[in-house]
């Protein structure tokens, strides 16, 4: 995030950040992808989740780290994700916008 600008979130980025928020300590590739599919209500490509995770990390909205390898998964490490303060703020802002949109839609269409 440059020059203190507030990044605006795309709809898929909102899904990714919401998934990380919901998963808390257990947010890594497989669980985030499953959570995104649940939230979106449709199948999502695993690769799409990875590329968005990279993008939101580059924007400074999440941070990631490799955990120690365990016996599961062929002894390979998991990359865990957590929201940064900037990520939390961006998600709050985008949720507030969604609420305003929802109010207008409810009002217009009943």
């Amino acid at each position: 995030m440059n020059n203190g600008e507030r990044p605006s979130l795309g709809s898929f980025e909102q899904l990714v950040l919401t998934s990380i928020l919901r998963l808390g300590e257990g947010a890594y590739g497989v669980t985030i992808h499953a959570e995104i599919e649940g939230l979106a209500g449709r199948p999502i490509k695993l690769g799409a989740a990875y590329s968005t995770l990279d993008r939101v990390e580059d924007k400074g909205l999440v941070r990631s780290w490799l955990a120690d390898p365990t016996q599961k998964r062929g002894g390979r490490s998991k990359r865990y994700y957590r929201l940064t303060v900037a990520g939390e703020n961006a998600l709050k802002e985008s949720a507030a916008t969604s609420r305003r949109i929802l109010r207008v839609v409810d009002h217009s269409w009943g």
Partner: protein
Amino acid sequence: MLRDLQLNNEAPPVRLDRMVRGLLPPMVREEVAGDLSERFSSSSRYFGEALVTLPYILFSQMRRATSGPMLLLEAFIVFASLGGFQPTDLTRGPVPASASTAIATIAGLVALLLRDAYRTTNRWTVVRALYDLVALVLAIMASQAVLMALAHSGLIDSSWRMPGLWLFGGMVFALTMLFILRTGVDLVGAAPWLECPDANAADLCKDYAAFRSKVVFKNSVETIALTLLVAVAFWFDLHARPVVAGIGFTWIGLTLLLMTYNLTRGRVSPMDEQSDIGKIITQYRKELDRQRRAIRFVWWWYFVALFAGLFINLLIPGIIQGRYVQAIAGVACILLLAYSIIKVNKQRRVQLADKIAALDRIVARSGQ
């Protein structure tokens, strides 16, 4: 929602797993291979998912490793060096030089992008730059071999293939410029320890020494590159029209002055390790600032000849001969080239500015 997640304890076959790991970029191999293996249910599904996931990962890694302006600048360097902007009356056969050069340039850029995606480090090291250039050469040679085979079998005209001498000369030029571009990116490097509250004078001197040796290396490479540019420009000016030769020889004279400056005053002065931290930071800051100005200037200077070539070969003939598409292409190329130089320069200046800001924070902390 996680209740729907069916995780399997089976593991993919060793050979298949090894193949998938080989396809994954090293920077994300560990976690992605682990995730894919965790989702394993059958060999075909595992391999299919790996193949579908791979393009996303490759594009993401390319985006992280390089930038649009940097790629554009590399495209200009390769295309111009291989003669893509040469006047149409110099082209041989029915195929314009720009078309045959475009194929070689695209092949070279794809190789560079793949090298970026499969990088093993985020740092722009000399070894990494050398491998990048080897990949570029191999890709260009492969593209020419394919064109040669197609021409030999009569499917395309032989003028699609670039002449060997032109290709060789152009590649020497392009490789030199790309080497400078790729090794000059990381002049200061990351120094997270500067943010530690106990950063001391000895650490700072060590970091300054690393910066100093990088500048020495950068200046040496730039001197070699400028010598090559001068030699090529001298040969070109001897064969050029008087007006062009006049401009060319002026450029050579000014470039020699720049080289003299680089060799005499371009160096970073040594640090007195006995100095207190305040003096060390002041000197470090001053040198970083000086390098920031030098970088901004040198990159414009490198492309003076290319700007001139775009004016002479594309823009002016396009206007004079009423070929407006060519003239518009000339203006677009000039603007794009200027944009890429500004952006790449900005990326480097931001790195140096970040370092200066880190030094300022040390001063602020020590004053508290």
